[in-house]
């Protein structure tokens, strides 16, 4: 990438972070987050529309199709900010649908989705902990987040080597919901009918899911970064034995170790995003980098949020303390778009070993 393109990319990333702070301030508007928990649909459609107006849902969609045409660096920066803010609006899932609709050339539904006028969820998953798309016609589609706020579902059906995409309206759909730990929900859809809006190759489908996995890793990065910042504040202020507890070496060293994991997570996510934005990067290298980033982010986010509870002590175990919201979000996000173990296997399969 030339220096000029790199500067442009950095500028886009900075701008997106600034605009994210306007709608979803880091640290979160926790009153809003709490008010939406365990309610239907679990997010605020007005905020979803704002996200559309900001161009976030179609951030990765080419400009000529009504998107912002920005890179994964910008998308990950945005996802990180939304993760830190605990925003419940399902941006990564919406962006996945936008990308698939754009690639299939489904202009109408795409327009409404990227404008934030509708939520379209891609109903790809048929098995827990999976990252492949069987596209079985009758199989129930699992783990659709905030599904009762969706206007339609995008159902991929296996067709030869690729997929045909069916857009099924939410109205009248056979959908059941289960609440999730973070106050949202997972829907199960039994697909039925709908309109074919286009076709996609298997490679297109996989690349789109990989981007969603990386976006999820960035969400997790934001979650752990913010949970850690709050924990550091607590360590600096909470007094025991006549001193701030952050002055105790056992806790300092634990905090240092968590910092290392967060730094590794950030380096991993950002280097994977950089690879995605380099047109000349081989697909296998990109796949390996994304797999690694998702595995790191999942493990590190669970470690950091778990330790954040421990370092908060008794108050950390109360629902009243906001730190618990971060653990709950990490629990829900960690295994979305592939578990850490699955992604490590993908890494091993994709990354050739280099002779030392």
């Amino acid at each position, binding site marked *: 990438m030339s220096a000029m393109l790199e500067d442009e990319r950095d500028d886009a990333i900075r701008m997106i972070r600034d605009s994210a702070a306007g709608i979803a301030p880091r640290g979160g508007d926790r009153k809003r987050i709490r008010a939406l928990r365990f309610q239907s649909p679990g997010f605020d459609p007005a905020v979803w529309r704002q996200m559309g107006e900001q161009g976030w849902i179609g951030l990765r969609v080419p400009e000529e199709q009504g998107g912002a045409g920005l890179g994964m660096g910008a998308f990950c920066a945005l996802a990180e900010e939304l993760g830190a803010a605990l925003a419940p609006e399902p941006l990564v899932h919406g962006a996945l649908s936008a990308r698939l609709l754009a690639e299939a050339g489904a202009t109408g539904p795409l327009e409404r989705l990227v404008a934030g006028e509708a939520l379209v969820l891609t109903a790809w998953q048929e098995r827990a902990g999976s990252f492949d798309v069987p596209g079985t016609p009758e199989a129930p589609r699992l783990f659709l987040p905030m599904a009762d706020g969706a206007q339609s579902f995008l159902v991929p059906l296996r067709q030869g080597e690729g997929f045909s995409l069916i857009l099924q309206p939410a109205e009248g759909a056979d959908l059941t919901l289960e609440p999730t730990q973070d106050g949202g929900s997972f829907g199960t859809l039994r697909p039925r009918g709908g309109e074919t809006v286009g076709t996609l190759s298997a490679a297109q489908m996989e690349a789109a899911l990989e981007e969603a996995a990386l976006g999820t890793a960035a969400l997790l990065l934001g979650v752990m970064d913010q949970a850690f910042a709050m924990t*550091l504040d607590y*360590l*600096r202020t909470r007094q025991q034995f006549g*001193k*701030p507890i*952050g*002055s*105790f*070496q056992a*806790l*300092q*060293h634990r*905090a*240092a*170790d968590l*910092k*290392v994991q967060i*730094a*590794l*997570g950030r*380096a*991993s996510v*950002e*280097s994977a995003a950089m690879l995605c934005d380099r047109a000349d990067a081989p697909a296998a290298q990109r796949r*390996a*980098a994304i797999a*690694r980033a998702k*595995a*790191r982010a999942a493990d590190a986010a669970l470690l950091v949020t778990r330790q954040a509870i421990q370092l908060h002590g008794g108050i950390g175990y109360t629902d009243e303390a906001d730190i618990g919201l971060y653990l709950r979000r990490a629990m829900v996000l960690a295994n979305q778009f592939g578990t850490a*173990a699955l992604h*490590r*296997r993908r*890494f*091993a399969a994709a*990354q050739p*070993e280099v*002779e*030392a």
Partner: protein
Amino acid sequence: MTDYNAMTDEDFRAEVRRFVESEYPAHLRNPPHRLHWQEGEEWFRIVQKKGWVAPGWPQELGGMGLDASKQIILIEEYERYGVARLPDHGVIMLGPLLIRFGTEAQRARFLPRILAGEDIWCQGYSEPGAGSDLASLRTEAVLEGDHYVVNGQKIWTTLATDANWIFCLVRTDKSGKKQEGISFLLIDMKSPGVTVRPIINLGLHDEFCEVFFDNVQVPRENLVGEPNKGWSMAKALLGFERIFLGSPRQSAYALSRLRMLAERMGVYDEPEFQERYTKLRCDLEDHKALYETFVAVLRRGEPLGADVSMLKLHQSDLFQRITELMLEIGGENAGLLKPMEGNRDLHPSGQFIEARPTTIYGGSSEIQRGILAKAVLELPG
């Protein structure tokens, strides 16, 4: 004189690569321990002929005058090829210190002899009672007329048996804050009263030594900088070299040997091994990504922050975890003193022991965590 900084990074990298691939002695690649001067001198002479002894020194003082970015490329290519580190304290530590804080006379006297390989320097910092708490050092230098008289003991002095000069932190004032009574002194090891005793380490190698000073007379002009300013000078020199303690090289090399061992032991394809091995590989790749973010800071010409401690902390931990897995899969072979089947690449116990001191030297992991907690995370106390 070649202006290396004017070359593109790619051209310079290719030049370094050509140099090591065509001239580096094959039998010295990836040695299992720090080379003694005698063992590595043939390589020094090759480097000397090329004029590449001191990459970071200015050209007018006989260095290559490389900027940080080019120095990193040089070191990356050396590491990639498995080029051994020579006794290099003169080039890396003392030279930059004299260039910045020394007198004209000190530069003229000492720098050319470093470049010529005539003086081999070692570093006298740690003492039996001053390891992690270095500033509490007690080796004392008392000014008597034109000479300092030095008494005390240094320890963990790397390759002191090879050196004819030692630069030391010595106590010159006991009255105030402990950091403010330390001076930087250059001592000829042939002076009467200097005794060197090698220490056999856990790897059964005599890499470091004890150095004793018994009424050693050191000319006053061998003091560098002002008296009692030694601590801040030495600290100022902890420059961008700190990044190299966190280089992924050791772990990358160990990981490749882990793979060879696993294949030899017939466990490479076992799912349990694959799972753990892949995790280590991911750790290494993430470490490289983190390392690159610090390299990028240097490339922008900015100083490294205290957060560079993360690199050393993680690299040493990873290196140890890799060698611990070697020990596990090696079976009884992991207890062998020598490499398996005479193959230097199959030596789980050797690699394991080699990894042990990395969490101790250069600021132990506990010290690094303390630095991170206080200087980066701004925790109290």
